[in-house]
C-alpha cells in the first residue's frame, strides 16, 4: 500500500497494522482445508491488507519451527517440518514368532560358530533359504565372520552382541550344552544302539574355542 493510497478516502477503512494482518493470515491458513492463494487472502482480509508482506513475516516467524509456511504453486499452506515427518507415522509393531527354519539356523550358528552355509545345510539336512539368513542378518542376531581358510574361502556366520543381549547370554559359551539339554528333557532320544561315538561329545568341547575377534568375551 503506497502512501498515496493511504491518503485517499479509503483511509476510512484503514487496514489493520501489519502484525494484525499476520495474525489474520495465520488463522486463515491454519483453518483452511487447502492452500490459499494471495488473491484469496486479499478477498478475505479486511480492505487494504498486504497479504504478501504478512506472508513473508509469517514465514520468518515459523522458520525453524515444527511447522513451516510453504508455497504450493501460487498458494500458501502450513506443513509439518520435513525433519519431523517421522512423528506423523505411527508404527504399530507386530511381534511374531521366528520360523522354525530360522530358529534352527540361528541355533546352529550359535552352537557351531563360525559356521559356513554349507555346514549349516549339512547339519539341518536341508538347504538354507536366502530369506532365512537375510532375516537373521536384519534382526542383527548374526553377522558375517571371517572367511574360512578352505577351498573357495566360504564366508562364515557368527552371532552378534545383539543376539547375546536378546537371549540374555553373556557369551556364546553360556548356551546350554547337549548334556544340559538332555537333562532338561529337551533331548529325549536315547543314544543310537550302534554305540557310535556321540558326535556331540567333542563337538561341544571345541565349539566356541575359535570365537571370532569381533566377539570379545564380556
Amino acid at each position, binding site marked *: 500500500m503506497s502512501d498515496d493510497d493511504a491518503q485517499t478516502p479509503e483511509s476510512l477503512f484503514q487496514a489493520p497494522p501489519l502484525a494484525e494482518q499476520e495474525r489474520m493470515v495465520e488463522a486463515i491458513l491454519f483453518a483452511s482445508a487447502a492452500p490459499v492463494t494471495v488473491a484469496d487472502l486479499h478477498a478475505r482480509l479486511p480492505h487494504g491488507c498486504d497479504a504478501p508482506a504478512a506472508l513473508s513475516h509469517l514465514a520468518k516467524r515459523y522458520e525453524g519451527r515444527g511447522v513451516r509456511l510453504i508455497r504450493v504453486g501460487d498458494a500458501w*499452506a502450513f506443513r509439518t517440518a520435513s525433519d519431523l515427518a517421522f512423528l506423523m507415522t505411527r508404527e504399530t509393531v507386530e*511381534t511374531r514368532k521366528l520360523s522354525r527354519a530360522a530358529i534352527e539356523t540361528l541355533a546352529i550358528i550359535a552352537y557351531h560358530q563360525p559356521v559356513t552355509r554349507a555346514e549349516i545345510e549339512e547339519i539341518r539336512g536341508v538347504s538354507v533359504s536366502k530369506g532365512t539368513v537375510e532375516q537373521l542378518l536384519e534382526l542383527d542376531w548374526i553377522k558375517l565372520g571371517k572367511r574360512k581358510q578352505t577351498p573357495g574361502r566360504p564366508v562364515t556366520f557368527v552371532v552378534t552382541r545383539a543376539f547375546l543381549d536378546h537371549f540374555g547370554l553373556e557369551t556364546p559359551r553360556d548356551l546350554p550344552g547337549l548334556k544340559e539339554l538332555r537333562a*532338561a528333557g*529337551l533331548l529325549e532320544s536315547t543314544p543310537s544302539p550302534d554305540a557310535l561315538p556321540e558326535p556331540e561329545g567333542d563337538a561341544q568341547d571345541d565349539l566356541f574355542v575359535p570365537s571370532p575377534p569381533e566377539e570379545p568375551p564380556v
Partner: protein
Amino acid sequence: MDGFEGPLDLLLTLARTQKVDLRAISVLALARQYLAFVEKARELRIELAADYLVMAAWLAFLKSRLLLPPDPEEEGPSAEDLAAHLAFQLERLEAMRKAAARLMARDQLGRDVFARGEPQGVERARRVTYTATLLDLMQGYARLRTRDDFRPFVMDRDGVFTMEEALERMRPLIGAVVEWTDILSFLPQGWNADAARCRSATAATFAATLELAKGGGLDLRQTDTFGPIHIRRRP
C-alpha cells in the same frame, strides 16, 4: 400449549408475571394463576396433556392445604415445605436455563474458533519384529541333534568291497588261472593295507569265487583248516 415445555415451564412463565424474585414468590397466588389458566383452557376446549392436569390437581391440593390451618395429626411434609420445594424447583429450572444460555453464548468450535482445516492424518506403518526365546533356540537345536540320533543307519561304503564288484573283477581273470592260485592274490589294489578293507575285499572275493564255482567255471581247494584257499580254472 405448544409453547410450553411441560407444567413446570408453564408455572415458571406464570411466576414471571408476579415480577418478584422467585424466592419471594407467592406459591398460593401461583397455584391460583395456574388453576385459572387450566380453567381457561378448558373453556376454550383446548386439550391439555395429562401431566398438566396432574399438576393442576396437585396445586389444588396444595392451595387447600395452604389455606387451612395445619392439622397436628397429619404426618409428612407441611404445606409450607411443599410450597418451598416448588419455589426451589422453579428457581433451579430458571437457573439451568440461564446457564444453558451462557453456555451457548460461548465461543463455539466451528463457529467462532476453528480447528486445523487440513489435518495431516497419522500414517500407520506396520512393522513386524520377530522374537524367539532361549528355549526356542535350545529346542530347535535339540530337535536337530535328536534327528541326527535317529538317522537311519547307512553303511560306510568306503570300506566295503561288494560281492558284485568282486564278481565283475574275477570273471575276466579266471580264464587265465590254470595253476592253483591263492585267492588273496586276486584282491584289488589298495585293499590290503587296511585290515578292515582287506577283510571286506577277501570276503567279497571268496563269495564271488563260490558263485563262479557254482556256475562250474572254476575249482576251489583248501588243504587244511584255516589254510589258504586256492582256485584254478576248471579244466
